[in-house]
């Protein structure tokens, strides 16, 4: 949620966020209200937010009920697909009184996703296993936006579970033999060592993807329902379908994309101009908002 606010360029009206809000780096300097599951209600109330943005995947309904009791309104997003993320970004932009910024951000996201879709069009999707945790093996279920993000990146999860975070049997994975393992990690440099370690274990060694070191590592932006997920999707598509991106001469436009996509450290420059001053605050909201991720 914090990332969405930054992408919309209204971060100066963000009065607080959670311990987990670490992107962009500036988000770490905001007043922290605690964790996503157990934020301090006193801290939130003391910031006098007009609106609290929450996400159903992480925050508890109890938090929202308590905020209601304090007379603080909140908006909860509950995205299950990449498209839902676009919709909720538009909605948040609307609530914060910057619908133009929302249209712009989502327009660009949509355009990048469309261009990716055109490129991957004829190529069959890769069979992949998204690894949330290795021992025990936890993956993602079909109704998570992560599973949908994989589809956008030209991959299909071999796990088809109604649970969101299924504890998957390694036997089943060994039978289905995914072409790629996908790791999403903020410490991406540690993943190769992690796969090397798995390759020493009898149960993991028999996975061809482990034996042949066929894995992709993307930013943990894929775990967050924010505009940056598109960069993670593009990055994943490049790693899974190098042939698609290799045999086409790279145009200037694409080069720019490449530079910005792997974990950009600056907030997207395009949106800087949308900074609204406190006084221009518009119809729905003029003031601060505390964000729980």
């Amino acid at each position, binding site marked *: 949620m914090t990332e969405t606010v930054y992408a919309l360029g209204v971060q100066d009206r963000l009065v607080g966020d959670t*311990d*987990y809000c670490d992107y962009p780096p500036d988000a770490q300097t905001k007043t922290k209200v605690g*964790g996503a*599951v*157990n934020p301090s209600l006193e801290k939130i109330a003391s910031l006098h937010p007009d609106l609290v943005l929450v996400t159903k995947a992480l925050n508890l309904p109890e938090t929202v009920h308590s905020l209601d009791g304090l007379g603080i309104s909140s908006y909860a997003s509950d995205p299950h697909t990449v498209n839902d993320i676009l919709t909720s970004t538009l909605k948040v932009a609307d609530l914060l009184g910057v619908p133009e910024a929302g249209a712009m951000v989502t327009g660009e996201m949509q355009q990048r996703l469309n261009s990716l879709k055109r490129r991957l069009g004829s190529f069959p999707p890769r069979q992949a296993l998204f690894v*949330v*945790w290795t*021992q*025990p*093996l*936890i993956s993602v279920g079909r109704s998570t936006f992560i599973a949908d993000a994989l589809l956008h990146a030209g991959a299909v999860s071999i796990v088809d*579970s109604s*649970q969101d975070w*299924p*504890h*998957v*049997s*390694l*036997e*089943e994975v*060994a*039978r289905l*033999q995914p072409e790629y393992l996908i790791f999403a*990690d*903020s*410490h991406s440099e*540690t993943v190769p*060592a*992690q796969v*090397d*370690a*798995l*390759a*020493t*274990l*009898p*149960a*993991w*060694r*028999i996975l061809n993807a482990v034996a042949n070191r066929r894995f992709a590592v993307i930013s*943990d932006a894929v775990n967050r329902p924010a505009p940056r997920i598109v960069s993670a999707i593009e990055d994943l598509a490049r790693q899974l379908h190098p042939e698609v991106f290799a045999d086409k001469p790279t145009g200037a436009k694409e080069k720019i994309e490449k530079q910005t996509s792997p974990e950009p450290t600056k907030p997207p420059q395009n949106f800087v101009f949308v900074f609204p001053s406190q006084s221009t605050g518009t119809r729905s909201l003029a003031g601060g908002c505390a964000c729980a991720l």
Partner: protein
Amino acid sequence: MRPLTLRRLLLQCLLLTAILFFVVVVALKFGAVPVSLYALGRDLLRVILGQSSQISSDYGLIIQNIRLPRIILGILVGASLSVAGTSFQALLRNPLADPYVLGVSSGAALGAILGLIAEPHLALPPSFAGLLIPLCAFLAATATIAAVYFLGRRQGQIDSTTLLLGGVITASFLNAVIMFLMSTVTSSNTRGMAFWLMGNLSTSFQKGVYWFLAAGFFVASAIIYSAANDLNLLLAGEKEAMHLGVDVRRVQLVVYVAASFLTGLAVSVSGAVAYVGLIVPHMMRFIFGSDHRTLLPTAALGGAIAVVIADTIARTVVAPNEIAVGAVTAIVGAPLFIYLLRRRLA
């Protein structure tokens, strides 16, 4: 107490071994990937004959590399917990005692969690990376054992009431630290803690770990078994045992250390699998009597059977997904304990 004959002991153990074998075959057959009994028998024969290289099918590899090691782990964990539970119940003369009552599992959990937090900051060689968590758990379990031992001494010797109280308080203190860490550490590795606390057998280890577990189990169990007679006398009371010529201090110390070691071994590879160490000793006592010379080996086999069955359920009931084996043992264990209790009262 009926006089023990070697013949009766062997018969009892043979019966349980046969049941264990049957359970293992069933456990090998069922899983997320279906296997026919014929293919299973053929592959097993090849493994026994040392021709495992001839196992060509994918399913053979799945059985050999995933299912069989997991069943072996279940056997070792179940047997260790059950022997440890039997020992603690005798040592503390308390029917509610289980391997975790003295805080060993909480200590191990804290060690595992500290390992999980430290892991991303360490550059470990690949062959060692998988051992970090079990090792941290084991070291912390050992430290807990030592701390509880010093808390449990009165006038230089173990006092079972003080030991029990010291252990329970240590466990609750360590649990509080775990809760504190889980709600304050923001590392993504904290996700692993929840899985660890539930207890599961799906972790894969290098071959050496299984040998180490097996060796540790046999050595510690043999040490406890050598004190089986003394444990029988201890049931009557510490003073009475002393009058009958038992070196109570020595027996208490040896059994305490060996049983804690067994618990530490089991917990470090599987997390806390609940109820096995509490219920299985009671069931075996119910069936075979309370002579520790039969109770210890039958409890070991019974614990192995219980955990292999529970893990087979955990693997298959929601296949191709799994549930934690600790959840299965807890759901079955609590009602079973109540049943045994009512039965004894009636």
